[in-house]
């Protein structure tokens, strides 16, 4: 890997108010490769950063963690170079620390509550978590021998993303027989098809999946629930409980004229082509992608940032990110916004597309847009963009990527009688248990909450695993049918 440490040692003075910056690939270098941008702390840096932790007796940071990682405890062990113990403390609550250390919005969670943050910068908890997880992986992860006696219960986990992997691992450790059904040809969900290599290397995701498989979880790919089998049929075939963690779903579009012109991708399509289908290696790989000179990304979330930065790496000359509110309201992580800015993504705030213009072949060549002001707060509590009359203009574009969110995939809901859904298509669940309206069926992650984060999906998975365990150990079922073997 080409590595250019991006640190100014003079400013990296050890004091309690400033965190140790993390080395990153140089922006000029990194936009020419898909290697990870953040290089992670060295041992030295991790120890220095860890020494900033005040080890508060009543730690606020833990309250901000959706899965309740014992943060001061693992940092204390890290300080003492007890790395093995440090990672095992993290793993008690978080099964995917190498992933969460990279993609969690720590600034909104644990780090938001860090006392040091009141006067200076909070402890970089995420970077420390990544450090101990990476160290463990490079040394070779030991798979715990499962001590729980087999319960004889079978659980089907639908969707092998962050929620599903968590449920599967937790239940396997408790002695249940788990089968994960994944619709795509590869497990990992959004970690594989969505988040780019430069933010989350796929080898890390692969290691986590292998870990879950080593716990005895069976993985069944190319298996689309609702079509290949229904939820009811899973129970008929001997499963005692089902967890649905099918993720975010169908891409949303704006509904403006010209949106189906060629050259306009949903962020899902764009990222699936690049991340899952490796189209950056086309024609060595068979999935093409077409990125022109001038790329426009519409949206302000992490997925929009990922799309913009991917477009740069595919050779776009200019990438503009168009967002209808202002910098203040951009929902993406600050770190990702800064990375995108460093790499040369041009932000056009308070701009709303109104129409796309195509050529005679049906290919997009222009985007008409209108400038906005911010008005009163809307239902989401954010100030609503109000178009400024007479401010319409057109910009030349070759490729457009629409990254404005997703709506739940309807296939399971439509094929499962008795499974209640909300008006927005998400599956209705009990917040604390993940229970759905269908007895024995649990759900969690984006399919239950609408679009959220990897860590919240994992948190939902942990809760659901716990309640599935309770359900299975207090209810005793007779399995009448044997599963006929797909896997």
């Amino acid at each position: 890997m080409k590595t250019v440490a991006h640190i100014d040692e003079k400013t990296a003075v050890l004091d309690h108010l400033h965190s140790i910056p993390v080395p990153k690939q140089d922006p000029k270098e990194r936009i020419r490769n898909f290697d990870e941008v953040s290089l992670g702390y060295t041992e030295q840096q991790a120890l220095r950063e860890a020494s900033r932790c005040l080890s508060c007796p009543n730690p606020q940071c833990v309250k901000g963690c959706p899965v309740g990682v014992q943060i001061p405890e693992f940092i204390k062990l890290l300080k003492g170079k007890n790395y093995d113990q440090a990672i095992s403390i993290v793993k008690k609550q978080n099964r995917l620390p190498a992933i969460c250390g990279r993609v969690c919005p720590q600034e909104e969670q644990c780090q938001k509550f860090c006392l040091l943050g009141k006067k200076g910068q909070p402890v970089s908890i995420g970077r420390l978590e990544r450090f101990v997880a990476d160290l463990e992986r490079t040394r070779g992860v030991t798979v715990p021998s499962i001590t729980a006696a087999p319960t004889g219960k079978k659980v089907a986990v639908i969707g092998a993303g962050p929620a599903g992997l968590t449920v599967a691992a937790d239940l396997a450790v408790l002695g249940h027989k788990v089968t994960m059904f994944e619709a795509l040809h590869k497990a990992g969900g959004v970690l594989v098809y969505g988040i780019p290599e430069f933010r989350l290397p796929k080898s890390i995701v692969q290691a986590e999946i292998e870990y879950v498989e080593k716990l005895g979880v069976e993985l069944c790919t190319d298996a689309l629930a609702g079509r290949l089998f229904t939820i009811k049929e899973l129970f008929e075939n001997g499963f005692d409980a089902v967890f649905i963690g099918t993720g975010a779903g169908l891409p949303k579009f704006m509904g403006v004229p010209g949106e189906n012109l060629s050259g306009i991708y949903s962020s899902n399509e764009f990222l699936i082509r690049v991340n899952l289908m490796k189209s950056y290696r086309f024609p060595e790989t068979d999935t093409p992608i077409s990125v022109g000179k001038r790329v426009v990304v519409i949206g302000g979330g992490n997925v929009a940032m990922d799309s913009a930065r991917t477009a740069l790496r595919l050779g776009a000359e200019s990438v503009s990110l168009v967002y209808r509110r202002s910098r203040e309201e951009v929902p993406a992580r600050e770190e990702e916004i800064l990375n995108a800015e460093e790499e040369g993504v041009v932000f056009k705030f308070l701009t709303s597309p109104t129409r796309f213009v195509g050529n005679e072949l049906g290919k997009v060549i222009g985007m008409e847009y209108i400038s906005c002001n911010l008005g009163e707060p809307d239902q989401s509590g954010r100030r609503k963009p109000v178009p400024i009359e007479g401010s319409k203009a057109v910009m030349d574009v070759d490729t457009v990527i629409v990254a404005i969110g997703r709506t739940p995939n309807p296939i399971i809901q439509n094929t499962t009688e008795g499974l209640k859904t909300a008006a927005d298509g998400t599956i209705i669940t009990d917040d604390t248990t993940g229970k759905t309206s269908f007895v024995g069926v649990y759900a969690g992650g984006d399919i239950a909450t609408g679009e959220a984060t990897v860590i919240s999906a994992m948190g939902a998975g942990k809760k659901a695993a716990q309640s599935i365990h309770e359900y299975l150990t207090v209810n005793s079922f007779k399995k009448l049918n044997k599963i006929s073997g797909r896997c």
Partner: protein
Amino acid sequence: MQISNVDQDCNCNINRNVIVSKQELSPQVKFIEVCAPEIAQKAKPGQFVMLRLDEDGERFPLTLVNWDKRKGTISLIFQEVGVSTKKLGKLPVKNTISNVAGPLGNPSEIKSLGLVVIVCGGVGTAAAYPIAKGFKEAGNRVISIIGARSKDLLILEDEMREVSDELYISTDDGSKGHKGFVSEVLNQLIEKGYPINIVYAIGPPLMMKAASNVTKPHCIKTMVSLNPIMVDGMGMCGACRVTVGDQTKFACVDGPEFDASIVDFAELVKRLKIYPEEEKLAAQFHEKAGGN
């Protein structure tokens, strides 16, 4: 040809995704039968599968032509047009397809309606066959019109005859049957006063559009099965979006069948031609690499 070729037990539970028989139906059009026991159990007319041939392969859809629940096989027919279909055409019997996912898409709404006319062209006949068969089995009177550029390119003539009460053939060059287009034969049937309850038109977009134009003035309900570009085929990417009425629909989860009278065929045609340069590049690359 026989639409299911394997007589012996092919051990589909063990030989998952293995090609167990193969046949050339016309130049560039091939038939394969693949072990996929769970898909064979669940398949219904109108549905499709997504294939991925190897680690570097793309995902692409093929309509299910036939399935044998007892043996556990599914049958597919494809025209060798792009890199993937050419690769698939070269895969010999006993080889394994890396991934086969399905059955996908909503099944055709098959019920007893009366007189059903199936209009199909080229390789579209393969997709039309299970629908014709389904309507026949549901007690309908089925008239099929199959077409191709010339008689050598006609496929599944015997199979279609078997599931139809009447079968008409049309070739562009007049080498067999009516000289001209299937939509013209459809028009003749309407003019003769056949009391048609529903038309299914399956084939190239322009053929489907022509059929729709014929039935529209007579208010005959016409369904088409659309074949846009797909990546996942399960409702994630939106590559397969089509304009139906004033709405954008996803062919993979909302379709693949839609009411022909409100489909924007012009847009569909344009969206099928998104990657002309990439297709050329891929063809050149594989010719060089594969010694084609």
